[in-house]
């Protein structure tokens, strides 16, 4: 049942910031990058939305979305198989005049009719380049109470290195805010300033009818990027509020941050901060519990189910179905699903994608500032 005065519709952009992690999105997109031993990054935003009472969620995909379709399925794991609403995936080319989008404004223009016909009063938009247990309900309440036209979430922290170091590709923008009270006064694009900033999380809440009007206008003018082209020029015309988020958040802005954000969860404090809110759901594989065989030595690891571990593992994040043979040594590694480390192999600071095999006796080491990535299905 859609309560047309209070309900919100969720929109997720799973391809945003793909360009920052080119290796990881070779066979997928940002949203379906494996994270924290058993999740995909989209699980965090998606679960946050469903636990905030949003039962109608659209995912606007652009390219490389096969793995995401496979992950989401019908949406059952997130309780999104509904008669009213549920999960919608909008692929490109849904209509003949639609084209693969570049920015949010053009993405929204592609689904303008859908937005026009929706019953929900509010629209909540988010990217999937961060791990966060976000309470969308609290933000929506604030949006309603302050009678804002639009509310943008931000957090106070230094700008992640990956954002700053990225080459200007004309699409991977990040934003920082100046606020006066809770009112957004100025938006900076790709600032290179050091120190703690009001960093945009790219989570928006906006009244649906206003969004339809804005997107319609943007379409007329051929504007691509919602924040840069649409919002920045009229920031003083609209009542735009900032919503400060103070909980745990980790941004994936390059390979190093991907590595670090995983490793941070080996600290119970961070793990609890990320997971103690509402539960995070993911696609179920139905693996057996992990078996530690006699002789295995494990210290400071996070391990999913379905693994068989006989070797030595230290400071690592291990995904589902990984096998580490007797005599193998794994240190400071992220091993994605079904990685096999054969006996006598010795690896350190490695990120192995799905189905990688490290052959017996092989030695391979990256460093803490430059973890080595091995792509899906490779045998070392």
């Amino acid at each position, binding site marked *: 049942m859609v309560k047309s005065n209070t309900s919100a519709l969720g929109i997720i952009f799973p391809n945003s910031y793909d360009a920052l992690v080119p290796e990881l999105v070779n066979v997928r997109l940002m949203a379906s990058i494996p994270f924290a*031993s058993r999740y995909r990054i989209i699980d965090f935003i998606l679960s946050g939305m469903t636990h905030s009472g949003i039962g109608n969620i659209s995912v606007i995909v652009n390219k490389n979305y096969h793995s995401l379709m496979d992950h989401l399925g019908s949406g059952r794991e997130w309780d999104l198989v509904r008669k009213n609403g549920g999960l919608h995936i909008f692929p490109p080319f849904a209509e003949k005049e639609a084209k693969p989008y570049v920015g949010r404004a053009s993405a929204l223009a592609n689904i303008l009719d859908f937005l026009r016909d929706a019953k929900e009063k509010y629209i909540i938009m988010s990217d999937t380049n961060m791990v966060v247990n976000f309470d969308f309900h609290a933000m929506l309440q604030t949006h309603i109470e302050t009678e804002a036209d639009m509310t943008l979430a931000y957090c106070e922290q230094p700008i992640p290195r990956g954002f700053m170091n990225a080459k200007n590709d004309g699409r991977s923008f990040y934003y920082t805010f100046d606020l006066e009270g809770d009112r957004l006064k100025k938006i900076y694009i790709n600032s290179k300033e050091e120190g703690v900033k009001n960093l945009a999380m790219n989570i928006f809440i906006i009244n649906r009818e206003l969004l339809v009007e804005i997107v319609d206008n943007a379409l007329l003018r051929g504007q691509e990027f919602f924040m840069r082209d649409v919002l920045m020029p009229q920031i003083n015309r609209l009542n735009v509020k900032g919503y400060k988020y103070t909980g745990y958040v980790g941004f994936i802005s390059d390979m190093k941050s991907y590595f670090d954000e995983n490793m941070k969860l*080996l600290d119970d404090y961070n793990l609890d901060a990320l997971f103690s809110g509402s*539960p995070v759901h993911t696609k179920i594989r*139905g693996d*057996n519990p992990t078996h530690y065989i006699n002789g295995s030595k494990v*210290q400071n*690891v996070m391990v999913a189910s379905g693994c068989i571990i006989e070797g030595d593992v230290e400071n690592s*994040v291990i995904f589902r179905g990984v096998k580490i043979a007797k005599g193998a040594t794994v240190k400071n590694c992220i091993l994605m699903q079904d990685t096999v480390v054969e006996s006598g192999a010795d690896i350190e600071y490695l990120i192995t994608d799905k189905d990688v095999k490290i052959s017996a006796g092989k030695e391979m080491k990256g460093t803490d500032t430059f973890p080595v990535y091995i792509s899906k299905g490779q045998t070392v």
Partner: protein
Amino acid sequence: MAKEMIAMLLAGGQGSRLYTLTEKLAKPAVPFGGKYRIIDFPLSNCVNSGIDTVGILTQYQPLVLNEYIGNGQPWDLDRLYGGVHVLPPYQKSGGSDWYRGTANAIYQNISFIERYDPKYVIILSGDQICKQDYSDFLEFHKAKNAEFSVAVMEVPWEEAPRFGLMVADENDRITEFQEKPKNPKSNLASMGIYIFNWDILKKYLEEDEADPNSENDFGNNIIPNLLRDNRQMYAYHFSGYWKDVGTIHSLWEANMEVLDAESSGINLFDESWKIHSRNVGMTGHKISAGAEVENTMVSDGCRIKGNVKHSILFAGVKVEAGAVVEDAVIMGGTTIKSGAVVKHCIVAENVTICENAVVGAMPSGDEDGVATVGSGLTIGENAVVGPNAIVQNDMKGGEEQW
């Protein structure tokens, strides 16, 4: 459209020999092997054998079981036509009745079975750990042109008197049935898994119901009646892993055998015969620096800081630094605090074992009791649970139970 074979799963038993573990749930719902419940095995066997219609007969404490089964989706049994159905006793216009026996439970659900117009019905029991391909069993049944077949296991002769035994000739045709005999003529133990031709089963169920002196039981009534009438009855030899987990000790033993798949034969990592179960959806487990984990199954959500050896940890178990766990089955959500020593025991769900408490002990001499702690209990600081104790109430600090 008629179904070739449907399954009826007897899940109504109390399992009183599991004591506190079945105080609030039926035996088939008892957790097993780190993430499963016993009923996952027959249900997964059904699906893996191509049976898509299963009736589950419940009676004793069905709440946990009902919720667990739900719409049957984890086992792929949420089907438009067929699927899994929980069948409790119900009120009828002619009065109502509890299930009076295994045969009566099926008799009361004749109309359920007839909806699917099956040629064969397989009767399963919900209290065994077994991986079995029922389609092989059905092939045997058809090849023998049987009207009734029973799956049997060869057991050591000295143990035979504890079982219901089938005496069969060289063609596997059953000539005699002995229920727990003093002088066994056979070592073929019935596994309590039967395939019937539906017309035969229906006829004998109706006849049995009309007999006021009957106990309405398959073993005591239906099978002897089939023998009396010289029906086509055959014994199907099964040689895989099979374990009746009807007692605390056998349940503990079966869990320990999971850790030793090579010699016990119960390999839960076998992709070709996967056991499905409902998932809890927790994060990966964590093993901290300083922890020691040896030959153990660990499920999602566990946090291990202490020493764990040769044990099964279900989802969300916490073992604090300085705690010692060995040869133990620790069910979901239980916390073992620092300094506690937990050995050779079964600890049920959501138990808190406080600092320096002692639960169970490794076997010494003839003594190999499995200490058992019921669900939701708190075992106070420095409390001692002896190796034969079955704890059903909270224990205060320093208290002892033997």
